[in-house]
C-alpha cells in the first residue's frame, strides 16, 4: 500500500522538477481555450453554452498528452524493469501510476476550470460540484489512460496509438461530465443531474477494478 504512494510521489516530484512536460501541457491548453473562445465568438451567451464541452474536450486532450508521461521516463531510463523486478504483486504499479496521472489531471483540471470561468464566463457558484465531477471524471479518464500508456510503453508509434485507443473508450466519461457541467452552468437543480454522477461513479469503479486486474498481464515480456 505504501509503495503506491511512494511511486506516485516520486513521479510527481520528477514531473515538477522537470517542469517542461507539465508546463507545456498547461500552455497548450491555455492556447487551445483561447483559440476556441475566438472560434465561438465574443457573444457571452454562445461562449457560456460552449464552455462545458470545451472544458472537457480540452481536458481529454491534455490527458492524452500527459498519459505518455507516466511511463515515458521509466522506459527512457530503463527503470521499468527495476519496477517489474520488485517482489510482490504488480497491481501496485498500476495504482501508483494511476494516482500520479489522477493528481496531474486534477491539477490541470483546476487550472482549466479557472481558465474556462474566465474566458468562457462559466459561472462558478457551485464550485463544490465542479470539483466532484472533476474528481470522478479525471479518475475514469486516468484509469484508462494509465492502462493503455503502460501497455504501449515500449512500442514505437505509441503517440498515435494511445489517443486512438483512448478516446472511444472515454466517450461515456466525457459525455456524462459535459452533461453534468452543462446542467450546473444552466442552473438546473443538482438533484436532477445526479444520474450523470452515478454513471461516472459506476464507470470509475468498473474500469479501475478491471484495469487493475488485467494490467499485470500487460507488463510481462
Amino acid at each position, binding site marked *: 500500500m505504501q509503495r503506491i504512494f511512494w511511486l506516485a510521489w516520486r513521479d510527481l516530484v520528477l514531473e515538477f522538477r522537470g517542469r517542461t512536460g507539465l508546463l507545456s501541457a498547461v500552455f497548450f491548453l491555455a492556447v487551445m481555450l483561447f483559440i476556441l473562445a475566438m472560434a465561438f465568438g465574443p457573444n457571452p451567451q454562445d461562449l457560456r453554452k460552449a464552455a462545458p464541452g470545451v472544458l472537457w474536450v480540452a481536458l481529454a486532450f491534455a490527458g492524452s498528452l500527459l498519459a505518455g508521461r507516466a511511463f515515458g521516463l521509466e522506459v527512457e531510463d530503463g527503470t521499468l524493469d527495476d519496477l517489474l523486478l520488485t517482489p510482490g504483486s504488480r497491481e501496485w504499479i498500476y495504482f501508483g501510476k494511476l494516482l500520479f496521472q489522477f493528481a496531474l489531471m486534477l491539477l490541470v483540471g483546476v487550472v482549466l476550470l479557472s481558465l474556462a470561468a474566465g474566458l468562457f464566463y462559466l459561472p462558478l457558484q457551485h464550485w463544490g460540484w465542479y470539483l466532484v465531477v472533476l474528481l470522478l471524471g479525471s479518475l475514469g479518464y486516468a484509469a484508462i489512460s494509465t492502462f493503455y500508456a503502460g*501497455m504501449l510503453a515500449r512500442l514505437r508509434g505509441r503517440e498515435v496509438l494511445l489517443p486512438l485507443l483512448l478516446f472511444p473508450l472515454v466517450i461515456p466519461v466525457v*459525455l*456524462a461530465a459535459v452533461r453534468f457541467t452543462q446542467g450546473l452552468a444552466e442552473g438546473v437543480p443538482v438533484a436532477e443531474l445526479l444520474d450523470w454522477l452515478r454513471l461516472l461513479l459506476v464507470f470509475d469503479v*468498473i474500469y479501475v477494478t478491471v484495469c487493475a486486474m488485467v494490467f499485470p498481464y500487460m507488463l510481462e*515480456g
Partner: protein
Amino acid sequence: MQLARSNQINRLDGLTLGLLGLGGVGAVVGFILAMGSPPDQSQGFVARIFHMHVPTAWMAYLASFGALGYSVAYLVRRKAHHDRVAAAVVEVGLIFMALALITGMLWARPTWGVYWDWEPRLTTTAILFAIYVGYVVVRGAIEDPELRAKAAAGVAILGSINVPISYMSVKWWRSLHQTQSIDLTTGKINVDAAILIPMLVNLAAFTLLFIGLVRLRAIIAAREAAREEA
C-alpha cells in the same frame, strides 16, 4: 507431436465448410422470404431492410461478447489458439458492424429524413466500431506474437465492457429509434409473425455465416502462424 497438433488446427474441416454453406443457403432463403414479407403500414417496402439490419446488428454485439470471452480465455490459459479466434471474431465482427451501420443509415434516410442520428444503438455501434478498429491497428503495430496477443486481449476486454456503459450514457443523452423487435429483458416480441419468421431465418443464417467465417479466419491465422514459425 507439435506438428500433428498444429496440422489439426490448420485443416479446413467439414464443419467450417458446412457452416459456411448452410449460412450461405440460409441467407439466400432469408432474402427471398424477406422480399415476400408484407410491407410495413407506415414505412412501406423500405421496412424490409429490417431483415438485413437487425441480424447484422446482433452479430456485431455477438462479436463483442465473443471477443471478450476469447480474450479472457487467452489471458487465463495462454493458448495462441484463443488469441487467433479472438482476432478473427473482431475482424469478422467489424464487417458486420460496418454492414449494420450502413444498413442503419440507409434505413434512417427515408424514415427519419437524415442519414445519421445520435440514437443510442447507432451511436454505441459506431463507438464499438472505433474501438475494434483500434484493436486491429494495435495488432498491426506489435510484431512480437505474445506481446501482441496480450495487448490485443487487453484492448478487447476494456472495449467490450464499454458497450453497456456507453449505451446507457448515450441513451440518457438522447433517444429516437424503433422499439426493439425482441425485448431481451422481458422476452416480449414486438413484431408480427409474418415479419418475425423471415427475420429469424436471416438471423440464423447470419449466425451460421458468422461462426463459419470466424472459423475460416482462425484457420488462416493458424496457417500464417505455423509458416512464421517454420
